[in-house]
């Protein structure tokens, strides 16, 4: 369904690198990375009213993911993850994009339903496990329409 489109222009600044991802839900987004290398359930793990990660056992507990490029390998646990992410998209508290290590059906569905109901979609990209491991919290990240992920190492 996703037709190839011309790549977006790269940001001019900084020494970035390009990671080739797989498009799960096509879209563009830019933001500061928030990276956790363990899976997360959004139900009981993401407060859609604030965008805070609230799973107290998760390494990102207490972080605000709203507007960030959230990178977590995949979802775990509850099948309500999709419903929570849909609420966050509607409320404007969702991440700007989500990067995973494989196609995550739960995240993808929230984006597809948000598109059906509100014509808003949340870009989703899957990276290889090796490329995912290169992302660090604080990196400046741009998710591009062709599935590439442009990363400028964070200085903070």
């Amino acid at each position, binding site marked *: *369904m996703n037709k190839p489109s011309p790549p977006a222009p790269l940001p001019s600044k900084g020494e970035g690198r390009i990671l080739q991802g797989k498009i*799960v*839900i096509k879209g563009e987004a830019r933001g500061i990375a928030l990276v956790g290398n363990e*899976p997360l*359930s959004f*139900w*009981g*793990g993401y407060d*859609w009213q604030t965008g805070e990660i*609230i*799973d*107290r*056992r998760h390494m990102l507990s207490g972080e605000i993911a709203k507007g960030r490029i959230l990178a977590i390998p*995949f*979802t*775990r*646990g*509850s*099948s*309500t*993850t*999709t*419903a*929570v992410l*849909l*609420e966050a*998209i*509607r*409320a404007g508290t969702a991440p700007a994009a989500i990067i995973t290590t494989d*196609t995550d*059906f*739960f995240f*993808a*569905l*929230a984006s*597809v*339903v*948000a598109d*059906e*109901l509100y014509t808003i979609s949340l870009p989703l990209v899957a990276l290889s496990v090796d490329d995912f491991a290169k992302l660090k919290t604080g990196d400046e990240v741009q998710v591009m329409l062709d599935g590439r992920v442009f990363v400028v190492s964070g200085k903070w």
Partner: protein
Amino acid sequence: MTLTLTSKDQAMLHGEHGPAVKMAMSILVRMAEVAGARELLDITGAHIDSTVYIGDAGLEFAEKLASLGAKVAVPTSLNVSGLDEHHWKEWAVPSLWAQQAHRQMVAYQSMGTTPTWTCAPYQTEMKPTFGQQIAWGESNAIVFANSVIGARTERYPDLFDICCAITGRAPAIGLHLKENRAGQLLFRLVGVPEQLQASDDFYPVLGSLIGKMALDKIPVIDGMTVRPDEDQLKAFGAGAASSGGVAMFHIVGITPEAPTLAEAFQDNSPTQTVEVTMEMLREARRELTHTDDDSLHLVVLGSPHFSLAEYKRLAPMVAGRKKHPQVKFLVTSSRAMTQLAKQAGFLHAIEDFGAQVTVDTCILTSPMLPEEIQNLMTNSAKFAYYSPGLLKKKIVFGSLQDCVDSAVAGRIVRDERLWK
């Protein structure tokens, strides 16, 4: 890999079966493409987790489908709602919230579903059969249906389950297909005493441990020397589906697709073998408790929903005893199981003990607990797992007997003997 649709799929997608079917099929087809499916397959049952009220978006989705005239095409059970319609006023549920949750219940009921309102539909008359293709939401129900019954569902999220129910179709992917149901990781129990294996608190702990290590893979458990009952398998699956994303497991010699180790793996080799020791189990048990405090405000049982057999076990444990006046004791269950328990005479002893029963919902899906209730105790790995994040409450895990004894004592007491 491209998705091929039948002419009937195409007709549904193009609106020839009405606008609700069109919307459901459009979501189904887009997601089938995301998942890399080559085709859709027929399902003959569904369980809808989308009934849980989260907020406006989920409600708008339900009411949009309902207003377009959505009707399910297959027998469809409903998961817990946000509300015990008859008893919510006894708890701290805000009335505006109750109204919204009720609208969501009405929307899903209008689609021709069966209002089971339970997270344990596999213990109702809607229980699927071996080999049946179904589309189920609710993580604990998914893992039970696949593993214990041998029905076939992928791990479906909220909002998708209803699209499958309306169209009677699901993507031909994942656990719908036999080749994807083989075990991947092997867990061998080593030196776990039979007495512990026979105890009810062993299963949520083992489930949590396996889920945490297996994540989204299919674990195979070998070396179990007792035959767990249905409720123990339910507790195991709920634990594994909370700490991990486990949608299917095999227990060699116990679950239907694992008569032997070789069959559990469909003659493949495990990608990893882990020895499960008492030390690992003790650590997993510790992780289910989130406080050192022995204060207790509420004992809560029934995630997944309490079954008739669990009511039957609880009744003699509480008979002739009284809970401490400062502790509440709550059982969450389905209307059907509670009615059966009543008919069987199990409820008297439980009510005389001072316990309350809530049906149709759960402490995790209804904002029913008042602020002053801060310290919880449970025998459920799922409650233990989600309460700190969702409810911001402290929780202690113990056996069913520990829960009863603590409710009587008015503070946390646990029998540690089996875990030494």
